[in-house]
């Protein structure tokens, strides 16, 4: 990998041991994040995108989760081999995270200024006063109006959008932010607020030198903010490319189906029937080794049921994992 790579994930497998059996939540996943880029991990519920994120900062509940194999190299160190203490040091200093539900992500009994200042106090040597000043500075950076006053508010006094800003500020409170993992950061927010938060994230990425791993199910959010996209389905990566490659030339049947299911797709301006993907997401428990999308795919044949396909490189940086790449290509003009 070249020098501008911040994080490389190789062949990661994550299993959950449940009463009914083993759930292979993430299978053979490899991906990389470059410095300064926003990588979107997109897919529907159960596709393993959140598990992937939690693998990076080691927040997978174990048990029942087990990281079976693979490596996650972040700034030349394998995160999966680091002791808990080191990981904790990395979290908050170099890898930070914001969650979907800003309502529950902040401690209800502490003022937001206190919570922010505490992150500074943990990682840097400074007085309480300095930490508070820093906290206010950050609140200003995430465009919270009258930050000095807001620092003395409790979380429940803020709106959802404001809370998410505070969460972003928490993530930025480190001395050397490297990677911010944003797990569905706008899903719980209203659309006008979502637009503001997405704007803020894009803005900040330029101001603060960091990469963002954006986890989302919303193709619109991806189109607005991502540089590169990894599409996941049932624990597998099925397509990867730049945001333009993915939206201009979606090539995996699943990506294609996903984009075609969107009512906002321009082809439905005439009110025509939506081209929905038939069927349901497969049960991860009983899923075999074949292509997980095979049972919903109109191109699928026996080969698809049997084995998971290898990589097909379509363009520089644009790859799909599909047995039927040729056939799909001939029909996938959007």
């Amino acid at each position: 990998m070249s020098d501008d790579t911040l994080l490389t994930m190789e062949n990661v497998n994550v299993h959950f041991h449940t009463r009914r059996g083993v759930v292979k939540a993430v299978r053979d996943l490899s991906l990389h994040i470059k410095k300064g880029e926003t990588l979107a991990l997109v897919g529907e519920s159960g596709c393993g995108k959140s598990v992937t994120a939690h693998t990076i900062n080691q927040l997978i509940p174990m048990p029942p989760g087990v990281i079976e194999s693979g490596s996650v190299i972040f700034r030349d160190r394998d995160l999966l081999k680091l002791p808990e203490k080191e990981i904790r040091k990395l979290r908050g200093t170099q890898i930070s995270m914001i969650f979907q539900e800003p309502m529950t992500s902040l401690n209800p009994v502490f003022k937001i200024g206190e919570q922010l200042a505490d992150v500074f106090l943990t990682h840097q040597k400074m007085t309480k006063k300095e930490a508070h000043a820093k906290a206010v500075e950050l609140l200003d950076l995430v465009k919270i109006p009258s930050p000095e006053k807001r620092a003395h508010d409790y979380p429940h006094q803020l709106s959802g959008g404001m809370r998410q800003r505070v969460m972003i500020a928490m993530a930025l409170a480190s001395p050397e932010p490297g990677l911010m993992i944003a797990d569905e950061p706008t899903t719980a927010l209203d659309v006008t607020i979502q637009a503001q938060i997405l704007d803020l994230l894009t803005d900040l990425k330029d101001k603060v030198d960091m990469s963002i791993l954006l986890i989302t199910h919303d193709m619109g959010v991806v189109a607005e903010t991502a540089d590169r996209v990894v599409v996941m389905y049932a624990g597998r990566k099925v397509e990867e490319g730049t945001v333009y490659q993915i939206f201009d030339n979606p090539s995996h049947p699943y990506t294609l189906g996903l984009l075609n299911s969107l009512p906002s797709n321009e082809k439905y301006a005439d009110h025509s029937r939506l081209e929905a993907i038939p069927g349901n997401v497969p049960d991860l428990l009983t899923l075999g080794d074949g292509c997980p999308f095979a049972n919903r795919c109109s191109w699928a044949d026996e080969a698809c049921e049997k084995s998971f396909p290898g990589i097909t490189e379509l363009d520089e940086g644009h790859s799909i994992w599909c047995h039927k790449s040729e056939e799909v290509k001939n029909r996938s003009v959007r």
Partner: protein
Amino acid sequence: MLFPTLFGVVTLVFFMIALSPGDPARVMLGERASKEKIEKLRADLGLDKPLIQQYGLYLTRIVRLDFGESIKSGQKVWDEIKARYPATIELALCAMIFASVLGVWIGVISATRKNTWIDYTSMVGALFGVSMPVFWLALVLIMIFSVNLNLFPTGGRMNLRLFFQPETNFYLIDTFKLLLKGEPEYFLSALHHLILPSVALGTIPLAIIARTTRSSMLEVLKQDYVKTVRSAGIKEQRVVFRYALRNALMPVITVIGLQFGMLLAGALLTETIFAWPGIGKWIYQAIEARDYPAVQGGIIVISTSFVLINLAVDVLYSVINPKIRLQ
């Protein structure tokens, strides 16, 4: 909130006693008393008046803390309560301090070491704790520590050989003054007499507090905001004690308040065993003697305390929970 509840309590007590079978006058004078005598006493007590009038009379007296006179001793009920209640409160407080401090500590340790032997042992212990009759535990403790090991006195508040004149009836306060004057034996004796009853009374609350703390702590540790501080790299110990504990304590405080109230009521069961001259033992004897004014007064005092404790809990609750404070 407070006054309507108290009013309700007082009313309920009145009607339950008033409607109970048996004639207090007859109880007081004995089975063989003449009819005239009983009628006269009934008139003296106001029992011949209509119920609603009795109730009005009763209310006006209660407001002035006049609970009437004890049938058995002839003394003013309020004076008897004043002489005895401090003993009960002193014991309950000691038991509660013992239970809260140890209970919260055990609960936190168990929660942070979930599924280790420490956790299992303390939780099995706690389960036994909540399953025991308190008076039985008291008896067993006396049997082991007083009778067999001879470590603690079997009852009473002070070595009877020490001549002691209480002022406030809170022995620890009274004797502390003597301690400062250089007479430590009084204080030590009072303390010595308090230990066994406190442990006996405190064990059940201890178990309940430990269980509540543990489950509340586990719940809080699962919350997103704990994930947030963890993902901000803050040390686990700080996560637990600074961030999580304060949230986890909220239900615990409610339980502590509730248990404190229960202890005051539970005094009825334990004070006789430890020959503790408190209000519980006194009410117990009053019930046996069907001494209604005393029973009435005692119950009102205990339930009022219970209501006040709950009020204090609410206040404390709002101090640590900004959501309630500001709304």
